[in-house]
């Protein structure tokens, strides 16, 4: 009993000490939709938080909440952060859009950054996103160069513009190498279910694809590809460890630079609302090292990535025909941002019907 009492006293002292240590200049807070252990979307955002800690050390305090369900829970979590002294709050899922804006209206002194959304109803809300589709174009080129069957498989999560854009960019890249290349798409209706993703991967391989790419978060498809001896692309993070004979490259969501930049802006007092859609040029989308492919293919991929980075190549440049055969973009024409943001149609070459 005495021992317990001492430990409780020590604990109380510890509270007092941690209380005193909170002398940071700013507090940055993050809300994740999944567990940081998903090794995908939420994991990468958390890497961004770690970058913030690395960059500012004691100057910036951080906090996060993981697995916050969209809906009523999200609004409460954001409000809790706003009340607990956060200076800037990153809400990292599309589904937090309305909750972020509602809370932001009530806390004008706190800065809010919402990922992948489009609503900025008060001046203290900014939105940000990354042009992942740029990486998909590079992947498409690699796929068409490496594939023997001329068919790739795409494990897709939900038919939202973000995913459709990735599919279209992938097939456009592939067609720039092999005009007859085609793409099979399977929708698994989940962002994260390793078993289901593995099942979909196997089904696609059995249907004759010899390259896999995914827009879901787990490493399961990579492992299936490794087991079956075909090639695959990673997603969100470098999944090389899960497919050393398999991973061609991976699109890496690197949120770190953006988070550091925005926290710096808060420290400097220069933070302003904006809508940012950055890509390779700003370092927010990066390609993992190119493995398991001939030297020439890797060289071509690097060249393409560089061209996109410096801005001489835009994946969505005409002529592009929609799946139904109508013309979308004329020769040399580029897509406007609204069409990209709301994309809900396939371009030619996708062997699938887009769910309506």
């Amino acid at each position: 009993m005495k021992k317990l009492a001492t430990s409780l006293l020590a604990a109380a002292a510890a509270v007092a000490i941690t209380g005193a240590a909170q002398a940071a200049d700013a507090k940055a807070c993050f809300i994740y939709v999944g567990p940081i252990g998903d090794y995908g979307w939420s994991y990468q955002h958390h890497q961004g938080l770690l970058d913030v800690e690395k960059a500012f050390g004691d100057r910036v305090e951080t906090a996060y909440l993981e697995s916050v369900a969209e809906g009523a829970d999200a609004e409460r979590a954001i409000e809790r952060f706003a009340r607990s002294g956060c200076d800037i709050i990153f809400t990292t899922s599309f589904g937090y859009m309305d909750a972020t804006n509602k809370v932001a209206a009530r806390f004008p002194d706190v800065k809010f950054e919402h990922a992948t959304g489009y609503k900025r109803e008060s001046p203290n809300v900014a939105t940000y996103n990354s042009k992942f589709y740029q990486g998909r174009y590079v992947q498409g080129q690699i796929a068409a160069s490496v594939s023997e069957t001329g068919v790739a498989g795409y494990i897709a999560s939900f038919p939202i513009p973000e995913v459709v854009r990735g599919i279209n960019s992938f097939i456009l890249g592939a067609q720039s190498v092999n005009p007859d290349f085609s793409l099979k798409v399977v929708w698994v209706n989940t962002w994260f279910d390793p078993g289901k993703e593995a099942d979909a991967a196997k089904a696609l391989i059995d249907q004759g694809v010899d390259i896999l790419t995914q827009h879901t978060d787990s490493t399961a498809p990579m492992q299936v590809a490794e087991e079956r001896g075909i090639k695959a692309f990673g997603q969100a993070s470098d999944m090389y460890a899960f497919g050393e004979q398999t991973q061609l490259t991976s699109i890496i969501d690197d949120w770190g630079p953006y988070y550091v930049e925005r926290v710096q802006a808060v420290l400097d007092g220069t933070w302003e609302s904006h809508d940012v859609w950055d890509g390779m040029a700003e370092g927010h989308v990066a390609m993992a090292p190119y493995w398991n492919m001939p030297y020439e293919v890797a060289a071509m991929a690097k060249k393409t990535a560089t061209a996109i980075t410096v801005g001489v190549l835009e994946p969505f440049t005409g002529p592009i025909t929609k799946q139904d055969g109508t013309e979308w973009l004329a020769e040399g024409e580029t897509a406007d941002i609204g069409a990209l943001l709301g994309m809900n149609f396939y371009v030619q070459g996708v062997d699938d019907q887009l769910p309506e």
Partner: protein
Amino acid sequence: MTRIELVRRPQHSALFSVLSPFIAVLITALIGGIMFAMLGKSPIGGLHAYFIEPLTEVWSIHELIIKATPLILIAVGLSVCFLSNNWNIGAEGQFIMGAIAGSVMPVLYPGITGPMVLPLMLVMGMAGGAAWATVPAFLKARFGTNEILSSLMLVYVAELFLDWLVRGPWRNPEGFNFPETRSFHADAILPEMLSASGRAHYGFVFAILAALIVWFMLSRTLKGYEIRVLGESPRAGRFAGFSAKRMVFFAFIVSGALAGLAGIIEVSGAIGQLRPAISPGYGFTAIIVAFLGRLNPLGIVAAGLILALSYLGGEAAQISLGVSDKVANVFQGVLLFSVLACDTLIRYRIRIVRPQPAAAPEPAR
């Protein structure tokens, strides 16, 4: 071997009815404190974050009420089901279908406004939940199909149906093809009770009303008697002239309607639009709430508030202590186990039996 033996009390212990929740909290605090200490966190700070912090601020109490509302509404309905021996595990699906049916007006007919919209939505929500609950009821009454399974399977179907709606036909035409319906117009939003201090809406009033009505029905009416008799012994119920089949429908429709009401209240009061995921598992958590409340609607109100507190406390602990949400889940699990275990004291005395010193000869049977 030392073992535990239960001795049935002649009647429920009034003392332990009151005491057992407190003993449970004490046990949880002890285990939780040890767990926090093992993680290198302050036990006192942890317990403070869990049980006290969410209650120290007005806005947080509003949030507590918001979180508890769907849990109480669903669990009250489930108590009717469980007492009558109908194992409705699919309240989550009924919640979703209620939300969908209730949203027909603001989503498909946004031009129709006025004070009648909201009552109509609530009624349609109840109808939607009840209709979805009728399916397992019908299958059970007509074919003897096990309702645990059919109601559970229908949860997945409802989730996918909602998913299809918000990505397809009901998608917001101005929403850049993102998966959500248009935001409800002002007349379709359940108003806040005290909007100056927080966002708690009138849903909680419905939850309390539902608890009172069902409590009255269960304890003061013939219907309540019928529910209990059929639940305890269908045979006895038949002799008393009650129809087990009709009871199946009654129980499922009541609990489906309340789950559906919870669904439309959550969407209209707390979210403001339909989206692919509208419930973090309320329908399943409510099953626990129903039993924590000992299947008594008034107990369920308390249980719903306690469980809601443990969610909020978990979040508070994540932020103020930096523990992960896994710790919060474990803590919640420990709390539930302690409460369930301590409730045993109401009905039984516990005797620890020590091993016999020598093998006494067994009396012949």
